[in-house]
């Protein structure tokens, strides 16, 4: 077999479609088996347009003249499968008659794979967005349970080391006759009311640098001087306490449901930590919490009772009434002070 014959055999058997066309006429001079399998047999004087009906001949000629090459894609259905074939034309040089070599590659699989990657990456991206959203929600939830610095520690190390904070001021608030209120009101009304009030307390506390620790039913505990120490923690807690009462008074004036509270302010050290493994909660313990709790129950409705040590720190800026030495259950006998809202005195004199 001659070299020419072998070449022709190779050209016919190769998995790439090959055809030779007259450069000017675009008539087929030769095509191999693969070409015929894809596009049929260009019998007789068939031209490019006969085989590819929508072919942009103008573009082909322009490109061949300028660069000697032209590349495009054709799609067709074979049975029901969409076939995508890349057509690559090259003009031969310095030969008469001028011919164009057409090489056709089957890129169906590449296109199918591209579609599959598109499909898959879109699914993954959507999932990633969902996971991110969920993560943000979890973060938001956890930030409601613990101070941000504690959350950051928890996120980084998976545990929170209990910390001693000293000194801090603890504000404990409890509603008067809450049990009666709960039985009298519709449960959803109670929850809506509490939610509204606690949210306002949170906002007020935040203004003065108090961090809400938790609510247990009708008890609301917030603390100043934690997690970041502040020298004026006593003032922050006192300011928040006075605003809580003012807020409730204003609210009671315009709302059908009346809420009366008692507040206790204690000062001292506390330990703050995340408690629990599955159902964890950030909590604080210590003498300051104990003082605030006891003083709260000692308070008259809409009054604020203050621990002696704290009253001394507040005496310069706040109006305090000396209640004398009191015996309060769970605490040794000690002087107790009542924190007054000095703005009320001004208001009364106007």
């Amino acid at each position, binding site marked *: 077999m001659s070299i020419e014959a072998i070449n022709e055999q190779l050209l016919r058997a190769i998995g790439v479609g090959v055809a030779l066309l007259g450069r000017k006429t675009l008539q087929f001079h030769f095509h191999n088996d693969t070409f015929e399998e894809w596009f049929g047999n260009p019998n007789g004087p068939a031209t490019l347009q006969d085989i590819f009906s929508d072919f942009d001949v103008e573009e082909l000629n322009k490109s061949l003249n300028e660069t000697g090459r032209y590349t495009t894609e054709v799609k067709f259905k074979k049975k*029901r499968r969409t076939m*995508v074939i890349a057509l690559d034309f090259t003009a031969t040089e310095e030969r008469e008659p001028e011919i164009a070599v057409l090489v056709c590659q089957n890129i169906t*699989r590449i296109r199918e794979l591209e*579609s599959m990657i*598109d499909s898959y990456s879109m699914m993954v991206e959507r999932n990633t967005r969902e996971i991110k959203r969920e993560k943000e929600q979890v973060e938001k939830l956890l930030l409601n349970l613990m101070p941000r610095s504690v959350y950051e520690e928890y996120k980084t190390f998976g545990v929170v080391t209990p910390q001693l904070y000293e000194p801090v001021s603890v504000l404990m608030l409890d509603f008067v006759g809450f049990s009666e209120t709960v039985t009298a009101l519709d449960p959803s009304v109670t929850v809506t009311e509490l939610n509204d009030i606690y949210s306002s307390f949170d906002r007020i506390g935040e203004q003065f640098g108090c961090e809400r620790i938790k609510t247990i039913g009708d008890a609301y505990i917030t603390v100043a001087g934690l997690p970041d120490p502040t020298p004026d923690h006593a003032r922050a807690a006192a300011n928040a306490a006075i605003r809580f009462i003012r807020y409730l008074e204003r609210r009671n004036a315009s709302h059908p449901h009346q809420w009366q509270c008692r507040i206790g302010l204690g000062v001292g050290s506390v330990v703050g930590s995340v408690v629990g493994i599955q159902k964890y909660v950030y909590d604080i313990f210590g003498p300051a919490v104990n003082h605030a709790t006891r003083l709260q129950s000692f308070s008259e409705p809409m009054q604020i009772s203050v621990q002696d040590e704290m009253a001394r720190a507040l005496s310069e800026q706040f109006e305090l009434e000396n209640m004398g030495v009191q015996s309060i259950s769970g605490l040794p006998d000690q002087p107790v002070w009542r924190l007054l809202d000095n703005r009320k005195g001004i208001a009364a004199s106007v």
Partner: protein
Amino acid sequence: MSDRTLFEKYGGFASVSKVVLAFYDTLLDSDEIGPFFDDVDMSRMVDHQTKFISSLLGGPASYTDVQLRQFHRNLDITNAHFDELKVVLEETLANHGFEPEDIQTALDAIEARRELIVD
């Protein structure tokens, strides 16, 4: 982790992609089911199969029952078509080294949705 999905067990998308393409080829060649895809655009068809196989194996796709019913509405899919699809899927998974137990899990998952697909 004991609750990993088949998608993870068989090597994630790197392996599952081969199952998708094989399944796609077989579906197109099938004279029973193939005609349903006569007029479906290639990228949509590939997208559909990618999501179908991924969700079936517990990958990052999932269809609600309402969606499945909506997609297959008015297609005149019979029980015979549905059975044929199961056969094609079973063969494809077996050809890609899936264990019989896992193939059965996948087939059960499809069977559970028969009523949503068949008219």
